[in-house]
């Protein structure tokens, strides 16, 4: 059993904690294949470093800092999977483990170049999970393309943690901060009112991975999963 890193823990807690629910220690220990006692010890350490909120006997959730870290590593992981599968034609059964090894070595700069190279993919090919948004301060992918010759330090960083509206619960609110995808879809979303900075509220989610209904500017709009997955909001300022 190899010792698990901070990133591994954050990734697992992030994946298990849907909508900010508490994640139990046993769940983590099963998922990581680590003894519960070691998990508890690690969680205490992560809490000290400010990555998780840990309450003994109840469970833990990620802090903003932890979430950011978890999303970063998930993004690298899923981009790598996409690259390995789509470009290098490595089998679906192998890409996950391969990406697990590579994700720690991938620099932020290489990550963004990879994203552009892959033409801003939205889902990873093996399990269809959403690739988290980058932390560059852009509202759309088009700017990233325009600005690509500038260095990362010049471009700056996005402060907030963004989440796809697909992962939100009914009743959750957020501010549209990033829309991934091609021009046509983007223009249609802008025209119905989903401009960057607009507040939206999740009204309904159809069962069986169906569309998400959001309330935007007083009107209700249904967005299919494929489109909703690419609309990212900032949920930090709760109204």
């Amino acid at each position, binding site marked *: 059993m190899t010792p698990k890193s901070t990133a591994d823990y954050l990734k697992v807690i992030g994946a298990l904690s849907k909508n900010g629910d508490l994640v139990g220690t046993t769940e983590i220990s099963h998922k990581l294949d680590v003894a519960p006692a070691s998990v508890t010890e690690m969680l205490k350490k992560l809490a000290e470093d400010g990555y998780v909120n840990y309450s003994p006997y109840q469970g833990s959730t990620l802090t903003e800092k932890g979430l950011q870290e978890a999303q970063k590593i998930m993004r690298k992981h899923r981009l790598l999977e996409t690259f390995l599968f789509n470009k290098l034609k490595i089998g679906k059964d192998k890409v996950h483990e391969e990406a697990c090894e590579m994700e720690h070595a991938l620099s932020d700069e290489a990550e963004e170049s990879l994203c552009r190279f892959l033409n801003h993919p939205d889902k990873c090919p093996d399990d269809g999970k959403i690739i988290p948004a980058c932390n560059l301060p852009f509202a759309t992918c088009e700017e990233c393309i325009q600005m690509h010759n500038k260095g990362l330090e010049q471009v700056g960083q996005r402060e907030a943690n963004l989440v796809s509206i697909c992962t939100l619960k009914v009743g959750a609110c957020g501010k549209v901060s990033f829309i991934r995808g091609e021009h046509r879809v983007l223009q249609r979303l802008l025209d119905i009112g989903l401009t960057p900075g607009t507040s939206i509220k999740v009204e309904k989610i*159809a069962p069986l991975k169906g569309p998400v209904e959001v309330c935007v500017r007083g009107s209700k709009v*249904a967005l*299919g999963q494929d489109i909703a997955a690419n609309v990212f909001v900032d949920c930090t300022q709760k109204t």
Partner: protein
Amino acid sequence: MSGHSSSTSSSKKTQKNITIALAGNANVGKSVLFNQLTGSSQIIGNWPGKTVEKAEGTLNFEGQQITIIDLPGIYSFSTFGMEEIVSREYIATENPDVVINVVDAAVLERNLFFTLQLIEMGAPLVICLNQVDIAKNKGIVIDTKKLGQALGVPVVPTVAIRGEGMYELTKTALSVARNASSNGKTHVRYGAEIEERIAKLDQAIQTGNLRLTYPSRWVAIKLLENDPEIKKLVASKSEDVIKMSEALAAEISSIHKEPCFAVIASERYFLANKIAGESQRQSEIRTTFSDKLDWIATHRVYGYLMSAAVVGGLLLWTFFVGNFLSKLISTYVTSRVQPLDPKVSGSILAIVWNGIWGGVDAGITLIVPFVIPFYLLLAMIEDSGLLTRVAFMMDSAMHKIGLHGKALIPIILGYGCGVPAIASCKIMETRRERLLASFAITFAPCAARTIVIFGMVGLFLGVQWALALYVVDVAIIFVMGRIAMKAVPGKSTGLIMEMHSFKVPSFSVVRKQTWIRTKSIFYFVFPIYMLGSALVQVLFALNLLAPIGNVMSPLTVTVLGLPVITGILLIFGVVRKELVLLGAVAIFGTANLALFMTPVQLTTLALVSLIYFPCISVFTILAKEFGWKAATTISVANIISAILIGGLAFRLLTLFL
């Protein structure tokens, strides 16, 4: 009005016909308003060279002849499809005397986004603030005077469905039309850094003397928004302007750190938000009856039950009403002229006449009574907002066949007749989706196929077997749709659909929608029915079909286990699906088909006729919409699946029956 304005064109217009265009978002009651204003004097056709519906009507208001044009319901003037292009070309080149912008009072901000674009186009404008009653129920009250001042155009509150405000609206529209000088008085002002660049580009367009039909400021904004159509138009006249616009757009996007078109959309929405906020008062948000109904219709259990009930109820209603009407018509109308059965022997002239009459008769007694009630109820369900919820619930299932929730409407239409169903596929965004939806429609049990199913299976084996065939057919649609999705390259577009509130359907809108969908049956399906029936009967009488039937016998007899004669029946069915049944009755000389075919054979034949080939009417519309190649490919796919599924069904059924 006082009479002579300075411009000569406007004084001419006072005596001449005045044209009013209706523009606005989808589902704001624009069609209801159109019907209220024009009554029965409507002409519904297509925009020249386009597949977009064009509705035109006339109104005589206090001695003034007015032509009213109903533009397509759109959210913006950006180019996505034909509807946006048709609308903006019309406003720019035809110069209607006044544009009435129909606005949903309950969703003011979103609607104003489009209003601002109309103001930018420089069209003489009147705002029709519609559905103020629904807004009031939701607790939204709008100060029309304030709104009018903020926009610089007159605002008239209306409830179109009850005819409230129609007089006031027409009067206001006329006075704006006669004072055409109000044209272009108001401006939408963006932020200084954008305005500065719009002005520069506007200047360049004006000095370049490009002879565009669109206002130069509007063209400047569209260039900055990177509108592909306008860019093409300008590029053909001046490359320099294009270069300049690209440079200016890049400047704006580097200031805002957003692409220029997003900046402009955001600014417009910012204005819309400001104007809406200043002129409306929102008291506490009330839960309306619509909200409660919405909760049920999209619930994870009740929602599906309701969807099933809606579609099931629709089919049941069609079946009962259709049967009743069909009997009524055939007893009192058509059977008095000539008997219904196809004639397959006697003089050629008699056979030709019988074929032609048989085609008319089939249309009148079999298609019309089933399809019209079906489409009437469907249009009601659609207009009420219920179908939107069904589409919302079914979206994920539709994704499995490469389509999205909105494709449900054409496919359900296919349960009536394939021709209008395929024509209505134009609501889908891409050719690939239109093709996939049309392919699915070729497997749908249309009214004629339903007659075969019930006449062969329902009558001799029991209704439960007929219903089972329906269920099997849904499975076939799903499997074939999935295969087609994998076979046709391309990506699926996702669903973006407004969930408008429930409302009581407007009879005039429902009637119009039904007619739009049914009319193709009269001018398209009827002639094919008449000619095709005559031709196929003559061929049979001349004994030309029997050899073909014999050639087909390895398929019909060996693979499908059917009598040799069914080869001929299936050729009959290419013309009209119900001819499979009627032809059998005529050839065997008795209605008791059970004497000649076993239950297994009857079921297999019904199943095969359900899927083996689109009838020639459907084939023709497929060729018209997608070309001969696609139509042939679809038909070949139909034939292969019919052979495979029919052969399998025959072998499986032999084990059970």
